[in-house]
């Protein structure tokens, strides 16, 4: 891993007025570091990176970085990103969304982008809660958890986002925690290199809301929890459902190939001209 402080300053927007919006101990900043390291490692030019986000705490990530950046509407980042990718196919398009952003209001766009195999790398910050609006239940909130909008315990069952996008047709799917930074850097790097719709689900602690509601404690305690409860996909295959209760299954779940939308569109261009 390169020296993050020096590296990050090469990619931060010096003109942007800091401080950033995130709470101390939030996992999103660690993701920002990982993303920068993976982009640097991949050797992409700043001009060729297009970073698009939705709305939420995670949606605030692009503004700090010196790339082409677009902050869209809640849940719809992938739709804008699709348009940009088709208009400017040379761009490496990366979309950052929250769990609510990606799988609740934007769930339709998520599954259809995967099905379409549009060449976009999607990073989903899963903190299992609506961070920005103050800790309401999201589609990944654990069953039974009392949140700001489920004071008597959450009555619904959570999505497994990685499995959802696998079923929808994503060609690369990986999950990591922000605690396992080396693995996180690595899977983001792999996702960026992948042609087609790639997804990295990043488990990131929201200390302010999820931490408080689960009684998990300090940011350090939440990190320790990630450390102690991560299980690689390979190992998880041999574990029972009970054993997997409250575990975070990590690693690369899907890595396949199929034609991308814009390659197919380019073929039509050649054929009809």
């Amino acid at each position: 891993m390169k020296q993050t402080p020096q590296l990050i300053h090469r990619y931060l927007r010096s003109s942007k007025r800091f401080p950033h919006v995130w709470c101390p101990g939030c996992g999103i900043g660690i993701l920002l570091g990982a993303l920068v390291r993976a982009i640097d490692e991949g050797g992409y030019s700043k001009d060729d990176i297009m970073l698009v986000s939705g709305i939420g705490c995670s949606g605030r990530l692009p503004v700090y970085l010196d790339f082409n950046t677009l902050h869209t509407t809640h849940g719809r980042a992938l739709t804008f990103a699709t348009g940009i990718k088709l208009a400017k196919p040379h761009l490496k398009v990366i979309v950052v969304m929250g769990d609510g952003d990606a799988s609740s209001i934007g769930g339709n766009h998520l599954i259809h982008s995967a099905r379409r195999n549009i060449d976009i790398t999607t990073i989903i910050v899963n903190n299992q809660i609506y961070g920005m609006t103050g800790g309401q239940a999201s589609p990944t909130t654990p069953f039974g958890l009392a949140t700001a909008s489920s004071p008597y315990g959450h009555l619904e069952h959570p999505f497994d986002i990685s499995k959802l996008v696998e079923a929808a047709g994503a060609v690369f799917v990986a999950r990591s925690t922000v605690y396992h930074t080396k693995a996180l850097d690595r899977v983001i790097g792999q996702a960026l290199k992948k042609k087609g719709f790639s997804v990295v689900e990043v488990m990131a602690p929201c200390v302010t809301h999820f931490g408080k509601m689960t009684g998990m404690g300090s940011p350090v305690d939440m990190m320790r929890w990630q450390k102690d409860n991560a299980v690689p996909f390979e190992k998880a295959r041999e574990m029972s459902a009970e054993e997997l209760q409250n575990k975070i299954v990590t690693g690369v779940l899907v890595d396949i190939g199929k034609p991308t939308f814009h390659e197919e569109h380019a073929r039509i261009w050649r054929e009809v001209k």
Partner: protein
Amino acid sequence: MSTQTTPERVLLQGSEACVRGALAAGCRFYAGYPITPATEIMELMSRMLPQAGGVFIQMEDEIAGIGATIGGSLGGLKAMTATSGPGFSLMQEHISFAAMAEVPCVIVNVMRGGPSTGLPTRPMQGDVMQARWGAHGDHPILVVAPSSAYEFFDLTVKAFNLAERYRSPVIVLADEIVAHTRESVVLPPLAEIEIEDRVKPTVPPEWYSPYRDPGTGIPPMAAFGEGYRFHVTGLMHDINGFPTQRQDETQELMMRLFNKISKDFHLLQWYDSYYDEGAEITVIAYGSVARSALRAVKMARDKGLPVGLLKLKMLWPFMRRTVMQYLESSRKVIVAEMNMGQLSREVKRVNQGKCEVLTLNKIDGQMITPSEILAKVEEALA
């Protein structure tokens, strides 16, 4: 795509004319979702755009359709989407985004019978106010309304020009009759069509502030991926596109958004008038109703009745100056529309007691006929 150099007479459905207009204007990106009575526009685009080297994509819903359209425009292409009432409602959040982020794009809404699923294959004009006020937050909007296949061609070209000139979403508000009627159209030679393109920055990337007012109120617009790295957001932003809550900056941005269009109100009076010589009564209409109205006015003139027609081709911003002239010169005006009185409210608002404003409304999914308008005219003269 045609590259004709002389005027061409063709039999076109309104939807086809719209697509031809879009392509002539330089549209190279379309994203949308099927809906009656706008589906023909999408289907034609799916065939013609790839032939012109453009991008066509069918999205998962209308929210995605306009989202991708905005993305295509941010990527430097002239972009459009088309829909009808239910889909138009879904698009409102992103129309607001396009207004705030100043992304040129064209949205065609072929109005059908409503509310809700209503009468999908029948005409109404129930979205006049939705086109103006449907999207959240206070912002100006540009809306044109064709009454014939030729105007659908012409106003689609002009809608792109407006979008590019003002960096604004522009709505082409058509109705089912205009979109589905097949009629003979004389298309101008391509070279004679006036085309406007967005102003691009000439400064080097380090100097570029994406929202700095160059004095015209309309900042030059770089495309993503061309070496200018900048930020675009729907949040209130400063001249660099970064979020701000500073009152001096929010005030400046909001006033610029309004003023960039209001400074040109005098250029945005798009109408045709007929038989206004000595007209005591003026019929005001737009869209397909203006066709019935013209026939009615001709019938009235044949009977020697002093009646004229004001056909509005731009609905928003409302053409206050033009309409006021007719309110001053006429004894009565009749606003005929296929709703319970949406545009007539505006006419009454600017009237201020100058003359009597009568309305002719129809909301059963049938067109307003010439004889119905003639009857209203005769009643008004009686």
